[in-house]
């Protein structure tokens, strides 16, 4: 079966094409030559006549339907329209520039804010901070060696309940052989939670209490390192 393109759509070249031509014949939109061809086809082809009859029948119904006009009181309509037009100004339908460009501008503003927030977060989370290190010694268990903790000053200053930005801390532990082992612990964001947990854990380690896994995620690396530190 052959197919051809009509108005961007594939059309079967036999019956459907004939139907399409007859539809245009009913509408009176064919050019003279095609109209003559269709008329010849209608004379010799009974199927073509049946297609024509069906299409003309539907069009007659539509013509009848089209003759029914809406029951509108046009005098009243004209009066209402005239009153409404009195209050209208030509050009008032035009949208202001900020409405027309509003969508693009809001997208641009959202992007700008997102970039700003991201940059601030990165800066605030301690990537480029100049935090001094302080050392504090915490007593170990009654019969065990004491441990030295080197932690971010910010955390000490703000305390366990405060909001700090601890990025890392180190733990120095004297071993039984007399040497000192230094462990550095990195803490990933969120920094405020990391700071609080870090202090809690330091105190626990310092007092010989076993560090417990926390439900707050402050970095898997940190937890593993802490567990290793407990004697």
């Amino acid at each position, binding site marked *: 079966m052959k197919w051809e393109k*009509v*108005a*961007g*759509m594939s059309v079967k070249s036999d019956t459907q094409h004939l*139907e*399409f031509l007859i*539809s*245009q014949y009913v*509408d009176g*939109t064919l050019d003279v030559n095609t109209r003559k061809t269709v008329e010849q086809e209608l004379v010799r082809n009974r199927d073509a006549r049946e297609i024509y009859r*069906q*299409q003309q*029948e*539907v*069009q007659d*119904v*539509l*013509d*009848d*339907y*089209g003759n*029914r*006009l*809406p*029951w*509108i009181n*046009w005098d009243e*309509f*004209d009066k*209402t*329209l*005239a009153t*409404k*037009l*009195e209050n*209208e*100004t*030509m*050009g*008032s*339908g*035009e949208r202001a520039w900020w409405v027309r460009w509003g969508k693009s501008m809001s997208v641009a503003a959202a992007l700008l804010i997102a970039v700003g927030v991201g940059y601030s977060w990165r800066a605030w989370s301690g990537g480029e901070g100049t935090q001094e290190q302080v050392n504090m010694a915490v007593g170990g268990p009654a019969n065990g060696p004491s441990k030295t903790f080197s932690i971010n000053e910010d955390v000490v200053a703000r305390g366990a309940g405060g909001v700090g930005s601890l990025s890392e801390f180190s733990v120095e532990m004297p071993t039984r052989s007399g040497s000192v082992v230094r462990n550095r612990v990195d803490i990933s964001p969120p920094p405020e939670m990391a700071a609080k947990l870090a202090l809690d854990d330091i105190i626990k380690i310092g007092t010989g209490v076993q560090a417990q896994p926390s439900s707050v995620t402050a970095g898997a690396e940190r937890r593993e390192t802490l567990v290793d530190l407990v004697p």
Partner: protein
Amino acid sequence: MNQRLPSDDAQQAEVKQAMAAAQELTLVLAAKAGDRGAFGQLAQLYQRQCAAVALRLLGNTHDTAELVQEALIKAYRCLHQLQQSERFGPWLMRIVTNLALNFRRGRARRQAISLEQSSAGADGEGGEDLRSTIAGRDLDRPEVPMASADLGSSIQRALDALPEKQRLALVMFAIEKMPQKDVADILNCSVEAVKWHVFTARKKLRELLDGQI
């Protein structure tokens, strides 16, 4: 011998058409210059055609009158944006069809919401009645003479069931007899596509109205 040839009638019709077009163009230019009276005359020229198209798309007279008013006011507000002053008719009709389509979508949403509320609020009968009413589209019954009201409402239901472009093409070209080029402009497609939409719409309509015609 005062016998008139067919070509005389055709010529007269052409002259008449050209004069009407020139008169319309004058009115459009005057309205663009701020003459409200000229716009009023334009509105009177087109309001019946607008109402007829809107009625076929909306299905009831009350909404139709309201929508045509809205379309004419919108046209007045935006008249200065009309580039081709001689194409006022198709431009206005595009406003009417766009508003009608938006109205139909809004109405479908409102009906869906009220159906939800009804089925959630009332247990049983009330909700069921509303569902059957909407399914039968009795709410959209066009105002037609009683004798052929049934066929009229069947045609309206069948039109509602057609895809958007087919419905618009059929209403504007096959029912309202608007020129194919104008319909193509309004639908933003080619004249060939309009012919195809009319053909397929008429075919589907016959299937939908099977047994009634």
